[in-house]
């Protein structure tokens, strides 16, 4: 899939933002007044900022309100509703915490659940797609949720919680890469099934339907070199998990905590780039782009 910057920025930032809102909602840290203002400002900037960026890739952003109507079937619609509900509830909670010094616990809990729900609905937009076997797995929501929770804990300064959560997220990330590499193969979709011609013999793309490029090739057929992807995986893993974990074990200082959060953010962005760039849409099969050579390892 084409790794569109708007979608990468959106899912990375809003995942982190809603993760932070979750922890603030359940009162970790139990902040009020000016401190609360700073925390909520960061959380809202990330969450709402990410959401706004996501509208940049729409063909008709002015009709975005219509996207709230189809929650019965559409994860994208559910995400929109969940995000607005989470921001509104946490907004109310923030007003109490910042201006009245009050802790409205039930409001905070509801807001926390909705914030987590937003991360989950985002992940389901990808996980539901059978056409992209790499995403079509429970590991996709597991990855988004564990990253949101651990990144949020990191931003919330909850070192004791952040360390084990980062370890969990790192494990899920490794599993997602490992499973993802064979997902297309396991899906059963091949050039033979795509064309229905496999019964005759081995199918080879002879001539594409068009001499130039098109929307399908631009959007869905992005091939990352194996070496390139391995290198990026190492960078993503080091930045998102290893560096923050090491920094967490040093004596606490705000500078180090900030550095840990920044490294994590960069690592998650890198992992998100790979999440899109490595995902093989089965339409590539029609262009002969996703067929592993006989006996070769699948493209990853």
């Amino acid at each position, binding site marked *: 899939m084409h790794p569109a910057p708007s979608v990468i920025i959106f899912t990375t930032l809003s995942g982190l933002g809603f993760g932070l809102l979750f922890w603030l909602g359940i009162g970790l840290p139990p902040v009020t007044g000016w401190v609360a203002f700073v925390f909520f400002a960061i959380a809202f900037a990330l969450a709402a900022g990410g959401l706004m960026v996501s509208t940049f890739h729409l063909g008709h952003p002015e009709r975005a309100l219509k996207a709230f109507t189809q929650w019965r079937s559409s994860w994208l619609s559910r995400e929109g509703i969940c995000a607005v509900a989470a921001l509104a509830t946490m907004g109310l909670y923030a007003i109490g915490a910042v201006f009245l010094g009050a802790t409205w616990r039930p409001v905070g809990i509801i807001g926390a659940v909705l914030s987590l729900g937003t991360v989950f609905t985002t992940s389901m937009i990808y996980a539901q797609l059978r056409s992209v076997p790499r995403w079509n797995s429970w590991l996709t929501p597991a990855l988004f949720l564990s990253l949101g929770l651990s990144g949020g804990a990191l931003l919330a300064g909850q070192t004791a919680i952040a360390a084990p959560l980062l370890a969990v997220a790192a494990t899920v990330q490794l599993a997602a890469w490992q499973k993802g590499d064979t997902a297309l193969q396991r899906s059963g979709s091949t050039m033979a*099934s795509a064309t229905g011609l496999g019964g005759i013999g081995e199918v*080879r793309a002879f001539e594409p339907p068009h001499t130039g490029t098109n929307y*399908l090739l631009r959007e869905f057929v992005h091939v990352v070199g194996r070496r390139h992807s391995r290198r990026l995986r190492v960078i993503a893993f080091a930045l998102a998990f290893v560096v923050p974990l090491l920094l967490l074990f040093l004596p606490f200082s705000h500078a180090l905590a900030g550095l840990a959060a920044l490294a994590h953010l960069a690592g998650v962005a890198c992992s998100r780039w790979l999440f899109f760039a490595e995902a093989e849409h089965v339409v590539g099969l029609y262009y002969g782009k996703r067929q592993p050579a006989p006996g070769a390892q699948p493209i990853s």
Partner: protein
Amino acid sequence: MTTLPDKTDRKMGLVIDLDTCVGCHACVISCKGWNTENYGAPLSDQDPYGSDPSGTFLNRVHSYEVQPEQGAAQLIHFPKSCLHCDDAPCVTVCPTGASYKRVEDGIVLVNESDCIGCGLCAWACPYGAREMDAAEGVMKKCTLCVDRIYNENLPEEDRVPACVRTCPAGARHFGDLGDPDSDVSRLSAERGGMDLMPEQGTKPVNKYLPPRPKDRIEDQIDVLAPLLEPIAADTGGFIGWLDKALSRLPGGTI
């Protein structure tokens, strides 16, 4: 509403004969011609006369080479457009309700005035049957020429999809695949009509007829072939001398 209907009254669709399609792309052109000036936004082109042309098409023809275990490779032309799936994933993912499947005939359509151009439906379609128009920012897809098939202003023979009407090889057939007695259903049953990527669970309405088994041509290319064997085995006389003399020159073959 982007939930799918439990069932549709009819299942209008295409049966495409991979045995007869000659890969002329006439259906591609007639599709673009009709659909760029009728239902919905035009099908735009970007840089059409420049060095990097691209554009929106609702029907595209691939060509595949299939190598059987024995015998010559076969070239198969493969037209692909929306299959108007019964279990259309493109419809249920749409957040706005712009994508829908009609109860009366099963046609999958996009209401362009509701489409926000998020592109998710094209992600969900395994077949690459939806293309976002770069000029309009809305999703385009095959409408099964919904503005032709019921159009009483057209003569009756024109009330079929443009691609079907134009195909010079008779490789495209249109009808109700929900009625087991319709011509298209009987044709598909007789010829072993198949679904594309059945493992994706989309339950396509459109069927593809596999190429018929080919004659074996390896043994004899043509009945006249024996007559084309070279007959001048011995080269005597003037021609023979000339041939030898020329061969002896520098660069000759002997």
